[in-house]
């Protein structure tokens, strides 16, 4: 890692609004310069931190383009005179050339003078902007082509709802796992993770088909696993901490509406449900309806003045709920109360679905629990405010497939939409993980504080993730050039947008489990056991089960 910044060009034109332009020095290989790099322009009194947004081929006159030089010698001779490369960079932050400890980089409000040297950012520059790694400022990757930490300011991160977007395989879940791990380790907020694909609990299968350790394994008792399927083979190795059951009474029509697609509900069906709820009671109708024999339907049709066909259809749709045994008539314990107990204990919860990892189960459980939890949080925060005491612990709710909860049709009514919009008024924010951000309501998107954006193939998705951001043109180019495991970070928790190579998960694991987690405990325990055994039986291999 070279510390001295390497000059790669000289500033020749530009504006604050549209960005700066520099001529690449002739001795720099243009193929080594790629978009997304951090660039520093050395002004007279200030350093300007910029992002490289474009590289272009330029010629000083038309003739050379019509009659290109042939041969290496001619190309070499014309380079820098008749032909040159232009770098387009977007200034983002500015700081004094020799900053004192009090100087923080601030948004740039002017431009550097003509011919200022344009350099690649050095390690020092990067740490000046993103700070040194620490427990509340963990390293989550490094700028592309550099090996310097880029840190996420967790304090700011927890103050807004955030999102991780990227197409399948872009590395969202792995990055989310790392962010969550650091959040848990730092105790900046309690985490509630709706883990649709069993990736955030005990272990996660990686591309190679091998199991990587996940949050529970790494952080031990700080993480509790709640499951709707305690009989799943998943829990042979590690027992789930809690068995989630949801009574029919807790299922609201709005929950079912959200899963209308999965249930096959039509508008007529939804109206029929409201009719039933009106007559039989909001918390009783579902149990009663599902219990009913179809023979009794004509009576219902007569009593409630509903359409018989619609009623039959509705029953067929709602019968799907019976395949989810954790939604039942009676339950032993109230899950939401239990969640609150864990939260008060400072424990983080991962909700798993075991063999019931259908979208239907996921939508229902996440929505029902979050809605009730949100109500509780609103009450608690309000009464804490009235009493002048601390409210409930800040909570980050992580949902995969976020568009299912936040599509424009429903976002205005769902709890998730509400949480996203009210920011952290009630100490509750979201971490959205999604591969189809275009399916998410614009208003919600524009409220997202920090966006972590991975490779996105679809133009609509790219436009969606940029909703409400400045410098969209620049950011769009950067997103277009992302590879798997590379992310553009932008927003509230970052001083300026930056493209990173996500930290290697293995590195994260060894870092996070230092001093915590059961792996380490286990290794230690086995070591002693093994030493004992070795003393008795001679050397033997350590075998993990």
């Amino acid at each position, binding site marked *: 890692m070279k510390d001295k910044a390497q000059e790669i060009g000289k500033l020749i034109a530009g504006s604050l609004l549209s960005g700066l332009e520099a001529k690449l020095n002739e001795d720099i290989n243009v193929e080594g310069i790629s978009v997304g790099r951090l660039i520093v322009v050395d002004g007279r009194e200030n350093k300007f931190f910029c992002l490289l947004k474009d590289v272009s081929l330029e010629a000083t006159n038309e003739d050379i383009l019509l*009659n290109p030089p042939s041969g290496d010698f001619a190309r070499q001779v014309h380079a820098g005179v008749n032909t040159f490369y232009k770098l387009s960079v977007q200034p983002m932050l500015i700081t004094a050339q020799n900053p004192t400890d009090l100087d923080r980089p601030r948004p740039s409000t002017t431009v550097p003078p003509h011919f200022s040297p344009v350099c690649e950012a050095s390690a020092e520059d990067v740490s000046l902007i993103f700070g040194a790694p620490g427990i509340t400022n963990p390293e989550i990757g490094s700028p592309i082509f550099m090996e310097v930490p880029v840190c996420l300011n967790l304090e700011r991160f927890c103050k807004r709802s955030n999102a991780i977007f990227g197409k399948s395989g872009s590395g969202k879940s792995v990055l989310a796992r790392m962010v969550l791990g650091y959040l848990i380790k730092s105790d900046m907020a309690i985490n509630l993770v709706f883990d649709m694909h069993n990736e955030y609990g005990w272990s996660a299968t990686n591309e190679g088909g091998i199991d990587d350790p996940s949050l529970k394994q790494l952080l031990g008792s700080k993480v509790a696993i709640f499951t709707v399927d305690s009989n799943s083979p998943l829990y042979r190795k590690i027992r789930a901490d809690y068995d989630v059951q949801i009574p029919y009474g807790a299922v609201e029509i709005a929950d079912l509406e959200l899963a209308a697609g999965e249930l096959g509900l039509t508008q007529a069906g939804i109206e029929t449900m409201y009719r039933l709820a009106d007559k039989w009671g909001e918390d009783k109708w579902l149990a009663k309806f599902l219990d009913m024999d179809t023979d009794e339907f004509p009576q219902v049709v007569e009593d409630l003045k509903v359409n018989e066909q619609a009623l039959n259809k509705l029953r067929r749709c709602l019968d799907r709920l019976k395949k989810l045994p954790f939604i039942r008539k009676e339950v032993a314990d109230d899950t939401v109360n239990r969640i609150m107990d864990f939260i008060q204990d400072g424990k983080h919860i991962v909700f798993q679905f075991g063999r019931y990892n259908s979208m239907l189960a996921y939508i229902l459980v996440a929505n029902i629990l979050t809605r009730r939890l949100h109500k509780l949080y609103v009450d608690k925060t309000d009464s804490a405010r009235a009493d002048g005491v601390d409210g409930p612990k800040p909570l980050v709710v992580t949902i995969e497939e976020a568009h299912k909860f936040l599509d424009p049709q429903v976002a205005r009514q769902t709890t998730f939409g509400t949480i996203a919009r009210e920011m952290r008024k009630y100490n509750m924010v979201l971490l959205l993980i999604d591969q189809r951000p275009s399916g998410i309501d614009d208003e919600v998107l524009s409220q997202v504080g920090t966006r972590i954006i991975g490779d996105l193939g679809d133009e609509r998705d790219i436009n969606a993730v940029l909703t409400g951001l400045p410098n969209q043109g620049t950011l769009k180019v950067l997103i277009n050039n992302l590879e798997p495991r590379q992310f553009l970070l932008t927003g509230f928790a970052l001083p300026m947008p930056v493209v990173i190579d996500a930290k290697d998960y293995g590195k994260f694991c060894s870092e996070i489990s230092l001093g915590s987690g059961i792996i380490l405990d286990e290794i230690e325990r086995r070591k002693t056991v093994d030493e004992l055994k070795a003393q008795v039986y001679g050397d033997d291999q350590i075998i993990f089960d």
Partner: protein
Amino acid sequence: MSERIGEIIEVYTTRFLAQADGLENPPHFGSFVKAESQGMAIYGLVYNVHETSIDPNRRAVAFGIERTELFKRQPQIAEFLKIEFEAAIIGFNDAGYIRAYLPPFPPRIHSFIYPCEKQEVLDLTEDLEFIRSINALPGLPVEELAAASIRLACSERGNDRAFLVRAGQEIAQLLKEEYEKARSIIRRISD
């Protein structure tokens, strides 16, 4: 000092005309020469060589005999011929310093002309200003002259490719509004 090659017979601020000594060793096109005048060396670049009859009123006539054979048979014919050459002034030696720009005055008529020493060629061509000078003079075959003199300066440097690249860049820069001209020179110096 090397062998004298001629004597000046006409001068202008930017160029001079000289008559060569004898008919046997005329200076090469694109070669560097110097005139010793007023205690100063003034450098020129040969851009035109011209062999003609001594008497402006009488042209040479064709004899149909090969030149050496003709001179052997009729030696008096050689007496009526002369070689003249023209050189563009590209610099001078000012108290030991080589200046690659025009001297305050041209050399005087009847000053003698000598070929430049190797070191003088190196010094004169180091900053490549001479290319700019010849490009500025009207009526010169600039493309050919620049190429010939650069090739010569390069061979004096043991065919240093870095020098050739530098010269090419200078030409590209100087003639950036005249790409075709630059291109033809560059083609002539890249072999």
